[in-house]
């Protein structure tokens, strides 16, 4: 990816609305339609709240880094944290037909984005999300 915008924020939910506006504007700038921009923003937002809750356990002063750019005809967003990682297969929600609060975020992310790749490294956790741009003329 040719990462063009990079944002560093603390793990405080207070700043989520600021980050949403960056993602939504950036996606629009590189050619996504209004509805796709909303979806992409929701997916990134959900991934950020997961980092805040699960990787940082609600601590609000930990660093999160968000990079966005274009890659292979789509948008790529990479989130980095230094909190507690999990094995990639543990990053899974509950079955959707079981009605109870919670367990929705990872489903939403996977439904919205075309590729999602989570990797826990020794010094950081990395979540890469990619979504193809609409074909020209769509």
């Amino acid at each position, binding site marked *: 990816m040719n990462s063009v915008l990079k944002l560093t924020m603390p793990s405080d*939910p*207070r700043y*989520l*609305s600021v980050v*949403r506006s960056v993602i939504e504007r950036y996606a629009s700038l590189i050619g996504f339609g209004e*509805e796709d921009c*909303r*979806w992409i923003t*929701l997916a990134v*937002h*959900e991934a950020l*709240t997961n980092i*805040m*809750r699960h990787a940082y356990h609600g601590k609000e002063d930990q660093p999160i880094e968000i990079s966005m750019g274009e890659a292979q005809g789509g948008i790529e967003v990479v989130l980095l944290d230094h909190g507690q990682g999990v094995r990639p297969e543990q990053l899974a929600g509950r079955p*959707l*037909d079981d*009605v*109870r*609060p*919670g367990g*929705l*975020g990872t*489903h*939403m992310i996977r*439904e*919205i984005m075309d590729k999602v790749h989570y990797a826990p490294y020794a010094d950081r956790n990395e979540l890469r999300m990619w979504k193809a741009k609409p074909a020209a003329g769509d």
Partner: protein
Amino acid sequence: MQIATRQAANATVVDVKGDIDLYNSPEIRKVILEELKEKHTARLVVNLTNVRYIDSSGVASLVEGLKVSKTMGSRFMLFGLSPAAREVLELSRLIRVFEVFASEAEALQAV
């Protein structure tokens, strides 16, 4: 986000304004659970007309309200979903478990 409750006919209406996300969903959850558990509200109607954005934690608060209302034998209704809010409930396959109305009048008249 701003949140306020008021009486309307046979129901209590919760008016929410702004985005519902991880930052403020605890507040909306608190108001809903208070109405149901402490005030024993028989019909609780959540007005989402002025909510542009709702995330999974917001959805979770609504689901929790719905579950508690079932335990308490109360009614839990939503109205005024923006296209974005509706999309999120559809994406999470939850739109069908809620009683969703187009307007306040329809929610209040529902039997």
